[in-house]
């Protein structure tokens, strides 16, 4: 069999607009995240802050904090210490849930190339010759007559089958994951600052005196 040029399977993917196939979903995701970021900001400013004299003040919520009290002898006191604390509203809102959490782009392409070559040959040959010799020979005493047949038969049969199968396949798969971006640094700082403000302030003895005065 003559040598055939080998087919390069990678060539089947060369015409694919991979840039568009991968880039388009990513761009759509980035656009969606940008839109969500704007919504987050608007939500924060309109819902979690009050505008007082042109200044934004965080909306505060009253919470009760209860703590167990341990007596001097080590036993747990029946009555718990209770105090009221203020928590900024924005610390209660899970802002980071407003983002694209995961993006999966699964692009799969399969190219299969199958070539089959079957060759069959069959031949039959038959030769036959018949001859009749009949020549009377007559003599005085007897007569002879000869008959003969000559036959040649040849039968040749050749049956062959040769098959060449060529299977080749190529697969192309792209899996992409885009993770969730953390909150903007500014928002994180504000939330941290307010979160730290939740902790009650422990007054020192001198502060107590000053406050009494």
């Amino acid at each position, binding site marked *: 069999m003559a040598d055939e040029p080998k087919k390069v399977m990678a060539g089947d993917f060369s015409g694919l607009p991979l840039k568009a196939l991968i880039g388009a979903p990513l761009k*759509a995701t980035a*656009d*969606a995240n940008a*839109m*969500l970021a704007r*919504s987050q900001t608007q*939500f924060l400013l309109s*819902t*979690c802050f009050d505008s007082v004299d042109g200044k934004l003040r965080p*909306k505060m*919520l*009253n*919470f*009760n*904090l*209860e*703590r*167990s009290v341990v007596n001097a002898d080590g036993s747990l006191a029946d009555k718990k210490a209770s105090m*009221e*604390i203020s*928590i900024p*509203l924005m*610390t*209660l*809102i*899970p802002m980071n*849930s*407003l983002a*694209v959490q995961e993006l999966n782009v699964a692009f799969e392409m399969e190219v299969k190339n199958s070539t089959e070559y079957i060759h069959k040959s069959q031949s039959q040959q038959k030769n036959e010759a018949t001859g009749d010799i009949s020549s009377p020979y007559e003599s005085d005493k007897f007569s002879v007559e000869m008959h003969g047949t000559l036959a040649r038969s040849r039968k040749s049969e050749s049956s062959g089958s040769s098959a060449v199968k060529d299977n080749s396949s190529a697969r192309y798969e792209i899996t992409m994951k885009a993770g969730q971006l953390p909150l903007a640094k500014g928002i994180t700082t504000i939330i941290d600052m307010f*979160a*730290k403000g*939740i*902790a*009650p302030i422990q007054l020192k003895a001198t502060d107590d005196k000053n406050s009494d005065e």
Partner: protein
Amino acid sequence: MSFHHSIPCPDCGSDILIESTQLLSGGSFRCSNVNCTVAISLDDPKSVSTVTSAFEKFEKLKEESLSQAQNTD
């Protein structure tokens, strides 16, 4: 629809997991580290209404964002 979030413990700073529906119904949440509990003050109706309104707005915002994202697909 409810959601989970965490706030820092006023005492030790570790995270206290809160759940929105339970919070609004007056449930308290315990810090596993120092065994203190926090709950919204039901005596202060303004706090409750503020949180309720904020959660509703947030839920609405999430639903809108989700529907927009689905339309983009």
